[in-house]
């Protein structure tokens, strides 16, 4: 917990095993405030498992995850309930988009601010003043975010049937509702074409600039990672290979071996 100045997240000696398989093995890294941090590695390297440990979907066997919350205090996330995490200022997206088909686009985004709603059940049953105020305030914020992403025209359409690129943006929009300190993106560019990827890069850069938050992302597309991230952490078989700037990582021999295999002499 020492030295959390300028750090938003500090992962220390994180380990988790499934049966005999060590999915994450003694992994440590930290993320600065306002940084875009990439987590890369070959398939099955344990990237998503690291995300699930940070957001407490999985309970790590060992290690600590220190996070500087909305209020500026440093808290260990390990042992917290999954649904408590977002309230601390840490929000995530999913590799396989997790949106609700039966809700409209704007309703899906309003779910992102769920913890901000305070109206009682009785108040909601009769749609009293507090419910109406909260609804309109948060709907307005959702529409602003949609407008920013150029999706305002589809706000009242159902999510079911929207194109993949749009779904990715909607999920990202949902993550912005509470002005988080750290956004965790699980393969945001997977399945997108070149122009969609480019538009996503710009959106992520804008988010970082305007909202003054940090971003942690997993990605396979190396061009995407190199163009976007300030620092990159490469892992393989749950173990740390290297941490550094995109240039350092590209030049790292171990990373090259992990990705491309070793050349036989």
């Amino acid at each position, binding site marked *: 917990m020492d030295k959390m100045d300028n750090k938003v997240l500090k992962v220390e000696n994180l380990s988790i095993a499934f049966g005999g398989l060590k999915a994450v093995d003694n992994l440590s890294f930290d993320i600065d405030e306002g940084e875009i941090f990439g987590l890369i590695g070959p398939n099955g390297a344990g990237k998503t498992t690291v995300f699930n440990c940070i957001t407490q979907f999985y309970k790590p066997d060992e290690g600590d995850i220190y996070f500087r919350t909305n209020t500026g205090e440093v808290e260990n996330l390990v042992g917290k*309930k999954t649904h408590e995490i977002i309230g601390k200022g840490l*929000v995530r997206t*999913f590799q396989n988009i*997790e949106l*609700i088909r*039966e809700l409209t686009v704007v309703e899906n985004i309003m*779910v992102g601010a769920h913890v901000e709603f305070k109206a009682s059940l009785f108040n*909601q049953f*009769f749609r009293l003043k507090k*419910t109406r105020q909260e609804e309109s305030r948060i709907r307005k914020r959702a529409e602003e975010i949609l407008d920013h992403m150029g999706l305002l025209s589809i706000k009242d359409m159902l999510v079911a049937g929207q194109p993949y690129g749009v779904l990715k943006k909607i999920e990202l929009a949902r993550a912005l509702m509470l002005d988080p300190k750290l956004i965790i993106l699980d393969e945001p560019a997977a399945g997108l074409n070149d122009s969609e990827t480019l538009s996503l890069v710009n959106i992520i850069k804008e988010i970082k600039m305007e909202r003054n938050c940090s971003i942690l992302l997993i990605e396979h597309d190396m061009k995407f990672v190199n163009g976007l991230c300030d620092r990159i952490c490469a892992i393989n078989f749950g173990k740390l290979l290297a941490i550094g700037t995109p240039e350092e990582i590209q030049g790292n021999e171990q990373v090259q071996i992990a990705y491309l295999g070793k050349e036989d002499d």
Partner: protein
Amino acid sequence: MNSKLMNFYKSHKPYSQFLLFGIILSLLPLLVNLGLVKYSLLTTVASILIYSIVALGLNLLLGYSGLISLGTAGFMGMGTYLTAFITADLGLPFELALIISVAVPMLIGVLTGLVSLRIEGYYLAIATLAISEILRKVFVEFDFVTNGFSGKQAQYPKLLGFLQLDRNGTYILIVFFLILVMVMMHNLVNSHTGRALSTMRGSEAAASAMGINIYRHRLLSFAIAVSFSALGGVLYMHFVKYTYPNAWILMLSLNILAVIVIGGVRSISGTILGAFIVFGVPDLILKRLPIIGSIDGAAYIFNGLLIILVILFYPNGLINMRFDIQRNFRKLFKRGEDLNG
């Protein structure tokens, strides 16, 4: 004046629709008194409306939260016995009986949920089935309160201690509660709790990540469903004035489930439509047909066939038929215009 009313109607949808529906339903006793419709129709419609209230609760549970309860009948039955005991045996006012008879089943429901909702899957269905059977056994065995198989009686409700309702008055009270429940349902599913329930049903991962306490919301929706069942039971008791153990068997719970499947999951109007089909068609139409009317259990065959057909052609319920009807109407009109022009 007329256009003003029309504007009010349009700008206050769906509340104005609910109100209009309530007003139309309230005209039924008048029609009976004028001799335009049969006396027994009022009983049939009243029971349909009561089952609609119960089914709305189950629709919140099934359609929005993705949970199944098979204990609907048991909790409804508990509502009938409690209110009969409190008003008839203890002589306490109807309003107090209403509150207690809804609160106690809800409490038992919450206790059931506390145990069975922790685990994922269909444990709620099994637990509620068990509770329902236990309750039915209680209705039979605790005969010093329940009169066992002979059943228990109650009277039409007396409101505020002096307003003694008759059959028509009780019917209007049922209509009032149905409209109230419809409004409450509509408001809830369009507020943050409703969205949270839908999110939980669609993706538990997304729900947890967005800060939705899944266990709490499961419990909440189950508690609401149980209290609507119990409310239906209270209204049933004071309209039918008689309850007995075998009225509250699994068959009734399954029929309420059929209401939702046939009428429309996640739809208030669909639930009402489903209740009219499942509890109305057998009584009002099937029994009057030659040959079919004399078959015992024709209603079960009818419901069974209907469920199969609905799932094949309208998997989200018959209420979605209206879109097809609208489309065909529009086509018809267009063709007419083409021919004219």
